[in-house]
C-alpha cells in the first residue's frame, strides 16, 4: 500500500523534530569546524607546500621556544636552489593587555616566503629598528593605526620595546594577527643574542635542491663551526657570526610537517578531532531518538487509522523515511549554515582564537558530507526503531 498521498504528519509537530536535528547538526558542525580550523591554523602556521623548509630546535616543547644559529640562514642561502632564507624569532608578548605574537624578521627574506600586501603606511626595512608592521586583524583588535606608538612587553624575559607602527598589512594567513619587527628588535625582546633565532624558514626550488642536501650542508657546518668566527654579514646590523651547535639538536623538515609533528606529539591529529566531533553528535543522538519517538507518539491515532485500512509496518516505516528524510537533509544544511555563521560572527568579534591567532572558519567538504550522512543515519535509525514500538502498541 502506498502512503505517499496521505498527509497525516502535522507540519507543526515536524518542526520540533526538525529543530532538534538542526541543533544536533549545528553542534556537530561547530565542534568539527572549530577543531579543524584550530588544526589547520597551526598546521599552516609556518607556510604550506613542500618547498617551504623549516630549520628548528628539536629539543623545544613548542614551535615558539627553540633556538637555532642565525648564521645558518645566510650560509644555506648560498646553496644552489635556495630561493629565500628567512631567520625568524617568535616572541610571545603583551600589547595593550592583550597576548600577541611578535615576529622578528629580515623583511626582504620574509616577504619572499610569506606574501602580504600593505594596506596602510609603509613597509619596514631591516634598519627600521624602532618601527613595526602590524597585521590587519590585530590592528583592528587593538585599535591601532599607522603612526601610533605601542609598548610591547616580553613574556619570557624582562624586556620591553616602544615601537612606532609604520604599516598595516594583510596576508589572509596567521601573520595577520602578528606584529612584524626587524630581527634584532625581536632578539632584544626575546632576550637572546644576535646569533640565535627561533627558526629559519627556507624556500627552495625542488628541482635543484632538496631537504637532504640542506641537512648535509648543516651537518658539515656542525663539525666546522667550532668557536665563534665572523662570516659575511647580511646587513650592517646583522652580524653573521658562526657559532658552534650540536647537530642532534637541529631539526629540518617541511614547514607544515614540522608543525604537524608538534600537533601529533600531543595526539592532535585531524582524524582524532573528527572522531571527537562525531562522539559529540553520538552523545546528542539520544535527543534525536527521543524527538523521533515523540513525533510518532503524537501521530499514534493517524497511524492507527492507516493500519486499520491495511498499511503494513513496513509501508509506514518507508513512508516515514520518505517524508522525514528531506527534513533531515534540510536540517543538516541549516545546521551547517548556522554553525558557520555563528563561528564567523564569533571570529569577527575576536572570540575564536588559538594562541592569539584567529581560527579560520572554512567549509570542509568531508565534514559537511559526514554531517549529512550522520544526521540522515540517526533519523533513519530512529524511525526503524520506532516502527517496532508502533507494532508493539497495537
Amino acid at each position, binding site marked *: 500500500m502506498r502512503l505517499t498521498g496521505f498527509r497525516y504528519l502535522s507540519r507543526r*509537530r515536524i518542526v*520540533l523534530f526538525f529543530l*532538534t536535528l538542526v*541543533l544536533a547538526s*549545528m*553542534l556537530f558542525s*561547530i*565542534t568539527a569546524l*572549530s577543531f579543524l580550523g584550530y588544526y589547520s591554523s597551526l598546521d599552516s602556521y609556518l607556510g604550506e607546500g613542500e618547498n617551504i623548509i623549516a630549520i628548528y630546535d628539536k629539543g623545544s616543547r613548542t614551535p615558539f621556544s627553540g633556538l637555532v644559529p642565525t648564521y645558518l640562514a645566510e650560509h644555506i642561502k648560498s646553496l644552489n636552489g635556495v630561493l629565500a632564507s628567512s631567520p625568524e624569532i617568535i616572541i*610571545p*608578548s*603583551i*600589547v*595593550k*593587555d592583550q*597576548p600577541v605574537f611578535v615576529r622578528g624578521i629580515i623583511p626582504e627574506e620574509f616577504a619572499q616566503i610569506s606574501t602580504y600586501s600593505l594596506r596602510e603606511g609603509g613597509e619596514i626595512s631591516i*634598519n627600521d*629598528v*624602532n618601527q613595526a608592521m602590524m597585521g590587519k586583524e590585530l590592528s583592528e583588535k587593538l585599535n591601532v593605526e599607522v603612526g*601610533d*606608538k*605601542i*609598548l610591547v*612587553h*616580553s*613574556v*619570557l*624575559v*624582562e*624586556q*620591553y620595546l*616602544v615601537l612606532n607602527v609604520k604599516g598595516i598589512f594583510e596576508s589572509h594567513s596567521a601573520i595577520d594577527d602578528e606584529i612584524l619587527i626587524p630581527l*634584532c628588535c625581536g*632578539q*632584544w625582546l626575546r*632576550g637572546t643574542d644576535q646569533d640565535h633565532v627561533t627558526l629559519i624558514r627556507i624556500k627552495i626550488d625542488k628541482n635543484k635542491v632538496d631537504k637532504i642536501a640542506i641537512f648535509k650542508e648543516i651537518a658539515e657546518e656542525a663539525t666546522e663551526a667550532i668557536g665563534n668566527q665572523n662570516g659575511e654579514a647580511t646587513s*650592517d*646590523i646583522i652580524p653573521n657570526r658562526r657559532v658552534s651547535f650540536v647537530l642532534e639538536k637541529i631539526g629540518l623538515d617541511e614547514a607544515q610537517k614540522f608543525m604537524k609533528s608538534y600537533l601529533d*606529539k*600531543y*595526539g592532535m591529529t585531524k582524524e582524532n578531532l573528527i572522531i571527537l566531533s562525531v562522539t559529540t553528535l553520538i*552523545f*546528542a*543522538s*539520544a*535527543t534525536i*531518538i*527521543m*524527538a523521533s*519517538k*515523540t513525533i510518532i*507518539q*503524537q501521530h499514534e491515532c493517524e497511524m492507527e487509522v492507516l493500519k486499520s485500512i491495511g498499511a503494513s509496518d513496513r509501508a509506514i516505516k518507508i513512508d516515514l523515511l520518505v517524508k522525514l528524510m528531506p527534513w533531515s537533509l534540510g536540517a543538516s544544511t541549516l545546521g551547517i549554515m548556522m554553525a558557520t555563521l*555563528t563561528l564567523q560572527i*564569533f571570529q569577527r568579534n575576536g*572570540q*575564536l*582564537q*588559538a594562541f*592569539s591567532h584567529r581560527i579560520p572558519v572554512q567549509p570542509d567538504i568531508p565534514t559537511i558530507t559526514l554531517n549529512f550522512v550522520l544526521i540522515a543515519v540517526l533519523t533513519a535509525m530512529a524511525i526503524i526503531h520506532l516502527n517496532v514500538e508502533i507494532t508493539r502498541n497495537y
Partner: protein
Amino acid sequence: MFTHALKMFLRKRGTPSAVLAISLLIAILASMNSIINHLNTQTNILSGYVSIGQQYLIIGINYTPLEDIEISKELANTVEALMETRYVITQKLFTANMTTKSVSHTITVRAVDDVQEFLRLRSAVIKGACGASDDTQVYAGEILAKITSINSGDQITLTINNAPIVIEVAGIVTTQTQSDAELIMPLTLVGRSPSTEGEGFFIEFTPKDPKKEDEILNSLAPYLPPNTKVVKVQQLKTFMQGMNAQTLSFLELWSLTIYAVVFIASYIITVRLLTEASYELSVIKALGAGGSSIFKLALTYTLTTTLAGTIIGLATGVVIAQVAATAVRWILIDVNVTPFLEAWQALQIFLLSSASSIFGCVLPALKFAYAPHIESSL
C-alpha cells in the same frame, strides 16, 4: 495528589530515555570542561618555570609612554619613598633630527636622569669614554652607530624642536636592548617639559624586595597623576590569563549550543510526557486539578528528569574524560592528561542546564495546562 501524579509520571516508559538524553548532553560539557581545566593548569605550571623579573614602568593609561604629561621628579621621589628600590629612572623618549658631518637622520633619543646608572642597569658594554660625566656628552647605541656611521668622539648636532645643540658622542654602547638603536643622553639636556611631538615620559623602577604585584600597584595608586598607570615589564601572568581566556571563550560558545540542545530536549520531554499521559492528565483535570496544577506537574517532572540527567551526566562526563585520558596515556606515553572538574563549574552546569530545562518546558506545559481540549493542544 501532586506527589502521586508525579510518581506516576516518573514511572512512565519515557523517563529513563529522557534522563539518558540529558545526561549524555551534560556529559559532553563536563568532559570538555575537565579537559580544558587540565590544559589551563598545564599552561600555568609551565609559566611557573619562567623566572619573573621585578621591573615596573609608570606609563600612560593607553599603554604608551606618557605624552603631553610632565613627570615630575617628585613622582620618582615618591616611588623611592614608598618602597625600597634598587633604582628609579625617569626617561623621556622622543624622536629628533641628528646631523653628522653632512648627513641628517631622524633618530630615537632616550633621555634619562642618570645615564651612568642607566647603562649599568642595562649591562652595557661601552666602547669609548666610559663614565663620561659631561652633560654635553651622549652615548650612541651600537646599531644606531652602524646605521648612521658615527663613532666615539664624533661631534653631532641634535635638533630638538627646531633648537640645535652640539654634543659629543662619548661612547658606543651595546646593551642587547632597544637602547642599542637609540641615542642615550642626560635628561638635563632636554628638560622635563613635553616639548616635541611624539615624545613620551616614563619611569622605570625595581623594588629591592620582591613583593606581590598587587601590593606594589595598590601602594602607588594614590600618588599617580591622572592618565597614568603602573605595569610590570614582564607580563607572563597577563599572557597566560589571555591564553586561558581564549580557550574559555570558545568553550562558552560551544556550551551555548549544548544548552540550546538541552532546551529543545526539555521541550521534547514535556511534549512527550503530556502526550503519553494525556489520559491520566484528563482524569486529574476531571478530579478538579486546575491549569496551574498541571503546569506545575509538567514543570516538576521536566526539572526532576533534567536534574537527574545533569547529576548522572556530570559524573559520566568526568569518568569518560578520565578513561579517555588513561587510554591516551597508554597509547602516547609522553602525554599525561589529568582531567578534573571544579566545583563551581559543576554548579554552573547544574544551574544553566536547569534554566535551559525550565525555559524549554514552559511553553508546552502552559499550552497543555490551559488548553480546552487536551488532544488538540500539542
